[in-house]
Every structure is written in C-alpha cells, then in structure tokens.
C-alpha cells in the first residue's frame, strides 16, 4: 500500500491529493489518502480526513511507501519503522502553509542524503519518483536515532538537577 498523508495543519494540500488521485487512477497502486483539511475529494482511491495517531502509525507501518508533506511526525515515524518516504513540501505561494519552512526542511534532509527519504519539489516529478521507489523494492532497517537518545538524556539530567 502507498499511504499519502498531509497531517493536521489547518490549511489543505490539494495539489498533492489531486495529483495522487490522478496517478492512482491510471496505475495499479493501492493508495490510501489522509487528506486532512484539503477540500479536494479523491475519486479513484480510498481516503479519510483524520484518524487517531495510533491508527496513522499502523497505516505507516503497513505501507511499502509513504508520500507526505514535509511533516515532522511522518518523517519521525517513517525513519523509526524503516519505511521509504517521499516528501513533497507545502508551499506558501499556493496557500498550503504560512511560511516556506517545509522547503527548508526538505533541503536540509536532501543535504544529509539519506536514501530512505526522497524529495520532489514539483507535482510532475511525483509519478516517476513513485515508480522508481516502488520498483526498487528497497527494504530499510529502522534508523538509529542518536538525536532522540541525546535529547532524552539532556532532559532527564535537567529534571534530576532542578530544585
């Protein structure tokens, strides 16, 4: 399954939902879309608006590919579960977010060249990229998260020392 998710942000992300609907209508992929506040309703695939986070985690775990805006929750979970992630950042100029910080996140991740995470910036690049990832059948081990360990340590230490 390919799981498409755009998170909880109050602005919609119709560009991604509409393009994925179009791609799914002419391909054999089993696509499920979490459309959030997007107003476009897909015609050729299953979709829903929101689910409790545990359900979203299950969908991600069961996916061969996740396609998402540059949302932090999705990036964290895909890395943790070793699921390939294709990021298509929201843009301010299309009314998809208040700032272009998602482009910055995508660029910062691109610089790190992590092969679990692919990034496209234009809708017309999505279809080729999806095919490339699905056909490669790559499997990933869950990512080692040293940042998480360090943060937990720093917070614990501070709590212990505080009066």
């Amino acid at each position, binding site marked *: 399954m390919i799981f498409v998710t755009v*998170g*909880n942000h109050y602005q919609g992300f119709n560009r991604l939902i509409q393009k994925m609907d179009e791609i799914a209508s002419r391909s054999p992929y089993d696509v499920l879309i979490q459309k959030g506040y997007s107003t476009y309703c897909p015609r050729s695939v299953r979709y829903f608006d929101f689910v409790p986070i545990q359900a979203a985690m299950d969908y991600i775990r069961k996916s061969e590919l996740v396609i998402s805006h540059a949302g932090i929750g999705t990036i964290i979970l895909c890395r943790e579960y070793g699921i390939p992630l294709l990021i298509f950042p929201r843009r301010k100029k299309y009314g998809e977010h208040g700032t272009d910080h998602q482009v910055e996140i995508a660029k*910062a991740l691109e610089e790190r060249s992590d092969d679990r995470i692919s990034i496209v910036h234009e809708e017309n690049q999505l279809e080729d990229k999806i095919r490339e990832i699905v056909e490669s059948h790559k499997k990933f081990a869950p990512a080692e*998260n040293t940042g*998480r360990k360090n943060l937990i340590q720093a917070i614990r230490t501070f709590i212990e020392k505080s009066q």
Partner: protein
Amino acid sequence: MEKKKKIGLICSAGGHYTEMLQLWEAFEGHPKFLLTYREVATMNREGTYYLENIFHGPVAFVKGVVKVFLILLKERPSVLFSTGSEIAAPAFYLGKFLFRMRLIYLECSAQVYQPSLTGRFVYPITDLFLVQWEPLLKRYGPKAKYVGGLI
C-alpha cells in the same frame, strides 16, 4: 528517598504531539500529565487534559488561559516541558510567574534556520532551551542548546 518531581507535558497536535511521544522515556518514573488540543489525532489518551485551540478567537483564548491556570493550580508540577507550539505560551508564563515552575522547551524540528514565534516568545523565561538543528543556535542567545534532533 527523594520525592519524584511531577512533570507537566504540553504540546499541540500533529508533529509536536509525535515529538512528545518520542521523548516519553525522558519522564519515566515521574508522575506526569499531558495537556494538548482536542483533535481526532490526540483523542482518548489517559492522563490527558484537552483544550480547544486557543487561537480560535478571543473567547477561546481567554477560556484556554483560564483552563491552563486551573490545571496548573490543581496539578502543581515542578517542571513543565513543551515541544510547542503556541499552547506552550500561556502555560509557561503562568507556570513561571505564578508557580515558580522550571521550564524546558524543545523547538520543533521543523525550525531549521528560523526561530518559531512561540520559541522566541518563551525563550527569555525558559530554563533549558533546546533546538534540533545546529544552524538555529545562532538565531537564539547563549542559553540555547543543541544535542541532536528527532528527524
């Protein structure tokens, strides 16, 4: 034996909530409660207080601030920890100035080069201020720390 400090955990829905769950281990062994927004994604979690989004107009803002005050008054945590976003602001200011709580703020990993509004707002009163990208350090003062990020 030392009495375990109570921790108040505060975050909005979405990535902030996922970041909070990722760091749950940091609070193991401590009594704690979570304060978050009422959304489908955050529903039905034990030990959790729910708030309507405080930026849905002035009435929601005042109601939200009063509710946060009552929760802090009832729970009296020693430490507040937040992964953002704006829901942290009233809790941190009330906690600091009315209850002398210690404050830990983790800037969201969505902020690579630019500080968030909430981050800038709570930075002056926060005791431990963590960012998740090194380039962001120079946009904050000397108090900001980088030890790693979640993504």
